[in-house]
């Protein structure tokens, strides 16, 4: 079990680094797909079966396909950037990242303990999906409905934004 976790964690970290470092956007996108798959593996190890597979369906299967579509549509090539200014900017970026990591590890090193566990956990005997369903449609019904309206707004927004300005003038009532 721990071996699997180390494997997935190493894959996740390596792929995330390659996403950030690689010059070609398509290769970055593919490494991100691999990173998401490793993350789905970690979710499965934690017993979150529904989330692990939904991660693959939504993130790796839909969102990254959208990224790849846009990259191919815009026909992006390798990023070429050279010069002292770029190197200075990159150096500052890496320093900021290192500082953030230092802060995070310092916070982790202090002694901290988990709070009390939640007693109102629905039983998981019918499986993870049934338990999530029970909680989602009872306690979290309102956020669920609001999220569906959010998705509707997003869909309408995407169609309006991506359509462009010139065509809306000529369309009239459709």
């Amino acid at each position, binding site marked *: *079990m*721990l071996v699997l*976790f180390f494997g997935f*964690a190493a894959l*996740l*970290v390596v792929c*995330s680094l390659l*996403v*950030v470092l690689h010059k070609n*956007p398509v290769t970055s*996108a593919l490494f*991100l797909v691999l*990173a998401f798959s490793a*993350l789905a593996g*970690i*979710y499965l*190890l*934690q*017993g*979150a079966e529904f*989330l692990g597979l939904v*991660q693959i369906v*939504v*993130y790796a299967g839909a*969102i990254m396909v959208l*990224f790849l579509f*846009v*990259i191919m*549509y*815009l026909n*992006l090539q390798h*990023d070429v*950037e050279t010069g002292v200014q770029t190197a200075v900017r*990159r150096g*500052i*970026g*890496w320093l*900021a*990242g290192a500082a*953030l*990591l230092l802060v*995070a590890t310092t916070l*982790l090193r202090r002694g901290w303990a*988990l709070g009390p*566990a*939640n007693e109102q*956990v629905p039983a998981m005997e019918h499986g993870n999906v049934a*338990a*999530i369903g029970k*909680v*989602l449609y009872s306690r*979290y019904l309102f956020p669920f409905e609001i*999220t569906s309206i*959010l*998705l509707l707004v*997003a869909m309408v927004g*995407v169609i309006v*934004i*991506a359509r*462009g300005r010139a065509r809306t003038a000529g369309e009239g009532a459709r």
Partner: protein
Amino acid sequence: MTQIPLSWLIALSAIVFTIGVVGVLVRRNALIIFMSIELMLNAANLAFVSFASHLKSLDGQIFVFFVMTVAAAEVAIGLAIIVQLFRLRETVFVDEIHLLKG
């Protein structure tokens, strides 16, 4: 089944989040910046799921469900904006999109 120690999971989440932050600061391609933002969101999701499994509560998993949905909506709109920006400015490098004109 031995459970994975919580501190390791949170450390992994912190590392992936930091890599995402570095990505946003270092890269100038708008799409790569967007991908780094997705990395950060996923690192937060990992933290939620780890706490959900250690506290034996399902609230973390429900929240991850909502984060995934919102991230999907955000990616769709963000990419539509980038495509529209590309049509106007012929570039996706955020350094070259610095005029409010047009």
